[in-house]
């Protein structure tokens, strides 16, 4: 029991963060067909901008979080309009643009504040202790925010007009356009939404584990694993795949030492993909 509750909390916190970031990546891919490999650095940038608002400008953490989401979502619109849309359908150029964005943002943040260890101020402090079990309020809040946001996103995608338009575009972009859906506007919105979610995860993880200019690199690997495991085109699959990866990352280090745990985590994902090449919830791609 002593080990079980912290492990369960770890699974939930990690999973919710993986899902938040991966969801933005998958949304943009589904709606605009863009593999945004710069999604990890946007997550990192969110953490640093949040830090700037809350620590440098001295704003309340919650207000800083809100402003960060607005700034990063606007940046998402900029990226979609000027970096991705002109190269839509051109995989090589999109990847090159993403690499350029990664290098510029990582180096820029590294030059400005990279040599100092910074953390986003904790949203709440203190530890909840029940008997032998103890969990920090910070982790409870991180999970609660993540879970609430995921609920809102599910509702948004399934219940609102814009969400349904996003689904329509992801199913058949030409048919959606013929129905009068403004594909560019929805793509820009998906990019803003995805970047905004990554920014929230960046701030939450920045408070939980600290900030680093290269924190996005590790997260991008996790996002790619979640997206592949979920299956192409599956937003629902992201939730399940995020939970699977979160569980693997929270449980394996308890039993397996060092880098082997990371390797085994990837091996488990490969085995799942061997059994279901289309991912857990994806559909077969027609070649």
């Amino acid at each position, binding site marked *: 029991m002593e*080990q079980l509750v*912290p*492990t369960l*909390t*770890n699974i939930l*916190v*990690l999973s919710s963060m993986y899902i938040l970031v991966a969801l933005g990546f998958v949304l943009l891919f589904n709606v605009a067909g863009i593999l945004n490999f710069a999604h990890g650095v946007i997550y990192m940038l969110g953490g640093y901008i949040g830090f700037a608002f809350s620590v440098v400008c001295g704003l309340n953490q919650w207000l800083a979080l809100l402003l960060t989401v607005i700034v990063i979502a606007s940046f998402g619109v900029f990226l979609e309009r000027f970096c991705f849309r002109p190269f839509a359908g051109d995989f090589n150029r999109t990847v090159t643009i993403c690499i350029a964005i990664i290098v510029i943002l990582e*180096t820029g943040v*590294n030059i400005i504040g*990279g*040599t*100092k*260890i*910074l*953390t986003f101020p*904790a949203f709440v*402090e203190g*530890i909840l*202790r029940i008997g032998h079990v*103890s*969990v*920090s309020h910070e*982790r409870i809040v991180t999970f609660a925010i993540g879970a609430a946001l995921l609920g809102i996103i599910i509702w948004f995608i399934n219940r609102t007009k814009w969400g349904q338009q996003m689904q329509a575009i992801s199913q058949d972009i030409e048919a959606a356009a013929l129905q009068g859906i403004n594909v560019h506007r929805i793509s820009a919105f998906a990019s803003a939404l995805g970047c905004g979610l990554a920014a929230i995860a960046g701030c939450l*993880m920045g408070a*939980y*584990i*600290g900030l*680093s*200019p*290269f924190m996005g*690199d*590790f*997260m991008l*690997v*996790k996002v790619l694993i979640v997206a592949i495991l979920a299956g192409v085109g599956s937003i629902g699959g992201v939730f399940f795949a995020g939970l699977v990866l979160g569980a693997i*990352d*929270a*449980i*394996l*280090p*308890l039993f397996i*030492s*060092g*880098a*082997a*745990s*990371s390797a085994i985590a990837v091996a488990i994902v490969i085995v799942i993909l061997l059994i279901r090449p289309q991912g857990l919830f994806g559909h077969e791609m027609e070649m």
Partner: protein
Amino acid sequence: MKSMKSSSIISIIILVGWMVLLPITANKASAQSEKKTLRIGELVSLTGFFSIRDIPDANETKIAADLINEMGGITINGQKYLIELVPEDYKSSMDGVAAATNRLVYDKGLKFIIGPTAFFAAATGPICDPNKIIRIPTWVVHSPGEVDSSTPYAFLGCNATVATAIGMAEYLKQAYPNVKKVTYVTIDDGTVPHMSSIAEKILNDKGIIIVGKPIVYSNDTLDFSPIAAKINANKGTDAVFHVNCVGPQVGNIVKGLRELGNNMPYAACMPTSLTEVVAVAGKEATKDVFVGAITAGDPDMAPLATEICKRTIAQYGSDYTLYLTGADGLWDLKQVMEKAQSLDPTVVKATWESMDTIETIFGTGTVCGDEIFGIKHHVVAHPQPIQILKDGKIVSGGWMPVYIP
């Protein structure tokens, strides 16, 4: 008449002789008073994940080089040499180290190199050793090929993993005499099979034993809560002994441990300041955590190190991370060059190997490490600084004597 003629001839010979010799002697005198430049390569990660560690150290090394130049530079046979550091970015990768070392050795023809840091040092050997290039890593984590019997031209000029572990174990023994059993924690950076047995011997020498297997975490660990849970589950221990670590890793593990109600003393064998641990874990959780870092304003610090710290803080701010490992290596190199009275790497190497003590920026250091490093007199150990949190303030915990067998 004849004697007058011969005296005239002698006078003419003397005059001609003066005319010939004067410019030569004058040139020589002027050459000796004129300072030359000694270019020393510097392998530093200006980009990539390791730049967090390397940029502050490189900035401090530059300050040390300026200080040496202000003091007259390096004097060899009456000739003064001013140091010019030639940095090359190794981009936080082994490939980058090889490329940067090639540029320093083959393109720029340099004979002495400061850096790189830690396990990256292993990538310099195949280029430097055949070319007899002396290099002084700014840290080693004790993986093969950094400084050992396979690297005849690599010298360690500062306290690194082994020396820090020795100093930290001594502090643990002095400050927490009841601690007899520890949990050993380290990163999976390829050093586990080499460093674990050394750490065990270091601790055993102080009457402390390691309980259970080493707890090893991956370099790409995002969440350290499972590691903290694992440490907490290793029952019957009085403290944590963490080797080869960086501030955020320690901060996250400490945070996780305190959350689990575990308030054991935590020895983090690293040169980075407690400010990094406090930034992640908070002051309350950082109680009873100590590191092997220097503390600005420490009255017990040697004058030279104090001066470099003072200048660094004046230039980069009071919260700047102070490593001084590159500065220490550069200062050691100056001492050895002046003792050798030569800029020939082979002579400098032989001189270093013949020395028993060396004046480091932290005071007198011992040239040692023959048994543990497997090479005679290639490692310098100086007193180990300890940094602690006392009454909510980061202060010096004193200097521990270090000798590496």
